[in-house]
């Protein structure tokens, strides 16, 4: 328990607020990497997922892609991309690696959300004269939102944990303290930084849990409570 006390003491110590990377800046860069990566990934994966779910085309490819991409070793990818992009583009290289990591869960959330809408509901929408685009925009997307937010939630959690690796290639994020702490055997610093990452992850997860509940369409929510 002493180690935990030391770790918490480290988080609030002046030592953590000074140096080449103050803790506040580390948290900020950590979150910036996370949000930018998830946003870029969402910009790519959400439309693609909706299209796959709506048309049913390319479903096998999407399933295979999101399955295979989960097996990519993130650490290797970060270092590889830094070498490929060159050391002057470390931020871009790391972000690209995190984007690739975030795409599969978002893609899966987007297409499975649209796909999971009951056929009867879709047929009903068609029957009242909705165009294909209206069916997607007014029926499938709103009904699929909880699953999409679920996908974003797991992507964000994966990325917020993995941004730690950015510390291996530069002075960014909370991973820096872990990388440095391992070498100088400062276990309070390692655990302190890890605890901050855990707190960030838990807070983000809670926010997404609330969001997931909030996006359930009124009609669906009313019917659920009636059940």
């Amino acid at each position: 328990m002493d180690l935990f006390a030391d770790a918490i003491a480290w988080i609030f110590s002046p030592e953590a607020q000074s140096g080449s990377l103050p803790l506040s800046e580390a948290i900020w860069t950590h979150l910036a990497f996370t949000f930018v990566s998830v946003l870029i990934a969402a910009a790519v994966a959400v439309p693609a997922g909706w299209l796959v779910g709506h048309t049913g085309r390319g479903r096998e490819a999407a399933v295979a892609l999101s399955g295979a991409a989960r097996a990519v070793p993130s650490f290797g990818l970060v270092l590889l991309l830094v070498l490929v992009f060159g050391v002057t583009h470390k931020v871009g290289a790391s972000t690209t690696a995190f984007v690739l990591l975030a795409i599969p869960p978002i893609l899966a959330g987007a297409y499975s959300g649209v796909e999971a809408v009951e056929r009867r509901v879709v047929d009903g929408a068609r029957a009242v004269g909705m165009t294909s685009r209206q069916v997607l925009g007014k029926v499938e997307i709103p009904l699929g939102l909880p699953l999409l937010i679920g996908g974003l939630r797991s992507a964000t959690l994966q990325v917020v944990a993995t941004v730690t690796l950015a510390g291996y290639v530069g002075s960014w994020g909370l991973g820096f303290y872990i990388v440095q702490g391992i070498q100088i055997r400062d276990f309070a610093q390692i655990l302190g930084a890890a605890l901050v990452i855990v707190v960030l992850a838990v807070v983000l997860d809670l926010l997404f849990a609330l969001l997931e509940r909030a996006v359930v369409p009124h009609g669906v929510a009313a019917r659920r409570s009636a059940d």
Partner: protein
Amino acid sequence: MRTTRRTTALVAGAAAALLTLTACGGDSDPLEQDTGDGGEETSSDTIVVGSQAYYSNEIIAEIYAQALEADGFTVERNYSIGQRDAYMPALEAGEVQVFPEYTGNLLQYYDPETTATSADDVYAELADALPESLTVLDQSPATDQDSYNVTAAFAEAEGLTSIGDLAGLDDLTLGGPAELEERPYGPQGLSEVYDVDVAFEATGDTTVQDLVAGTVDVANVFSADPRIQTEDLVTLEDPEGLFLASNVVPLVSTDVADQVADVINPVSAALTPEGLVDLNVQSTEEQRSSEDIAADWLSENGLA
């Protein structure tokens, strides 16, 4: 009954696979092997030479080995025994008798609080710090230690030869592994010893690339790194002893020290800092084996 037989076959297969695996494991662990025959002291003519799992260290070990063989010793090679925590027990127990080491790093292993930095001070303190079963022979002028480097272009433009010349330059960024920030020779030491103020940037495994690309101005690179040659870097001199000197030094069992000293001391004397870099270049750039590099070096230096 049929299932039973099949299960037996499966278990037998798994056991066989496991045995094969453990056999492999045993082979790749040099320390494991030794315990079998290393119990009693090997005959006085057989010397066990070991090395770290570091290519440069293995080349030096191979030079020792071939020099000893040329002098009539029977040599057993035990290379790539991992890092210091892994091989020191084997050395202290006499299972490995000759090992290339580095004075500064070895001194820090035995005395982490040491304040010695100059080569001679470090060597003297090391001799005192070693357990009785171990002895260091003469240290070599060759070093493999932390050093600050700049690009040749930057050195020329600013007229830099020593770390002190950096004083007064604005907006300097120092690159190196993340832990450099906390080391005694890191940014704080630079400021205290040489009055050089730098910002710190953790560059991890890409320190040399960062220096070449210009994202950092000064980089912490091992002094025997071949890229100092191949990337045209300039190592800044350290007259004030900011860095802990770490010369190549043969660490030997006290039992055999007198026997091997006459063979190995001339090798240490002939190994220069530039010579060590050159050996490393032959390994990393030309992909030559350590046997070939060692054989050539010994004949060039008239030692074999």
